[in-house]
């Protein structure tokens, strides 16, 4: 019985070590290390957004909801000093006066583009 338990312990140790090495040699390559949306959002680092600003990130047209969720999270990762909110369209009756888009949509009346880099555009509500 004692010999069985000893062998059992060594078997557990061998499997555990082997798995530890195997995972290092053959890591999961099904997902890219760098998110595909990183390049799209990266210019946000230099966008003229003051810390504490509440900004809306408009959902990109023609992509999945999941992709848009990751765009929003990447925006938060890139600019954690900004309070991000997802929106589908330019806000009408809202206290939001700052909007960031990731596609080439045109702004509605009352908004003007203040900054752009790559596909990113920053819009602000024009003063009345």
């Amino acid at each position, binding site marked *: 019985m004692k010999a069985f338990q000893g062998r059992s312990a*060594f078997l557990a140790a061998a499997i*555990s070590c082997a798995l530890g090495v*195997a995972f290092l040699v053959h890591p999961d390559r099904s997902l890219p290390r760098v*998110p595909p949306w990183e390049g799209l959002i990266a210019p946000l680092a230099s966008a003229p957004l003051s*810390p504490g600003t509440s900004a809306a990130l408009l959902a990109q047209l023609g992509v999945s909801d999941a992709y848009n969720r990751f765009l929003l999270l990447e925006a938060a*990762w890139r600019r954690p000093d900004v309070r991000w909110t997802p929106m589908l369209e330019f806000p009408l009756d809202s206290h939001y006066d700052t909007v960031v888009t990731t596609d080439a949509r045109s702004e509605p009346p009352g908004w003007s583009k203040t900054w752009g880099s790559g596909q990113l555009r920053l819009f602000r509500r024009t003063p009345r």
Partner: protein
Amino acid sequence: MSAWLPVALSVLGGWGIGRWHRRLPGAPGAVSGTVLWGIALMGTSLVVLDAAGIRWTQTLLALPASIAAAAGFFAQPTVEPSSRRERTWGAVAAAAVAARALVVAVVPSFGWDFRYSWGLKAKVFALAGRHDFAWLTRPPDWLAHPDYPPLWSDLIATGVIFGGDPGTTAAAWQALFVVGIAAACWECSAPAPAPVRALAATVGAWIPVVFTPTVAYSGYAEPLIAFGISMGVASLPRMALKHRGAWITTAGACAILAMTKNEGAALATALAIAAWRTSPRRAALAVAAATLGSVACWRVAATLHGVQGYVSVLSPAWVGNRLLHLPGEAWSVATPTLVALLVAWVAALAAVRGSDAPAIWIVVGVWAVALLAAYLTSPLKLDHMLRFSLDRELAVPLPIMVAAGLRDVRFPSAAAPSGPDSAPAG
């Protein structure tokens, strides 16, 4: 390099506290004690500063660690003598551990949950200089898990405060956890001969799945949980012997577990129940208090600030349906890794025996029930949960269970009392 500064400070502070701790019987060894108290000191410093309304700064984080390190010089810890054979095998284990720690340290964390949950919160906390409850109340997306206990994000935030990058900081901390898990496994297997203990330490350092540099798991909280449960389980046998230094260790480990993640809180509860059944009441009470206090500390703060998270579904119909589908879903996501992990678990538990077995079985039993309950009551899709969590959940306590199984291994020469090589080796 700045990402490494808070880790180095923790090591200094942990070394100082560990030296005082080692004046008590049953305290952990120099290495594991340093890691345990380094993490506890840094985590506590952040919580206390936040509770006092004081902004986190480099100076305020360095101060407690410096004081603890200075105090350590005045302590006279009990030094247990070690044989030459132990030192030799200890060096072999150290080489295996160093290799793994180096591999972990050089790859900045990059997993998506790290980027959009643990690391993101770390950036936000570092910017605010505190736990930013306003942000947690209204995160950009629930994937950020605002309700999770904050210790792992806090530790990453320390590197950001010192000017480092979250990914590099997480890698630096995780290299420290590698060392801590390995040291705990070395201690847990203590009565075994030195080569077996070296094997246990190597198993600890080369823990599968959780330190893997993959998108799926890089930078996640599981390594910290693995360290906490390893320290807790390693101390349980000494707790049963009424050693004061041991229950302080278990209490510290439970606090770390409870402040890291809900799964950590489940493991801390398992340790507390095991302590209740196998250790003196006063010691068990201290462990339970550390667990409940840490859980309550975060839950009360989060609730008062209105922080919300996923709500478990407790309806019998939901739970029953999930229970019915669990075997099929588990089968559908089964991989060779998962099967190998299960075989390793069965083998490790089959090897656990003696007076330590009841405590181990209680820990495993409570943890298994908690894990099952989490899968059955989660609002998330069952196959998705199993696919992206079951292997890491199984991997977290595995090394310390293997070490517990190795405790009673004796080489034939050492077991024979009248043999020529019968001198104790461990």
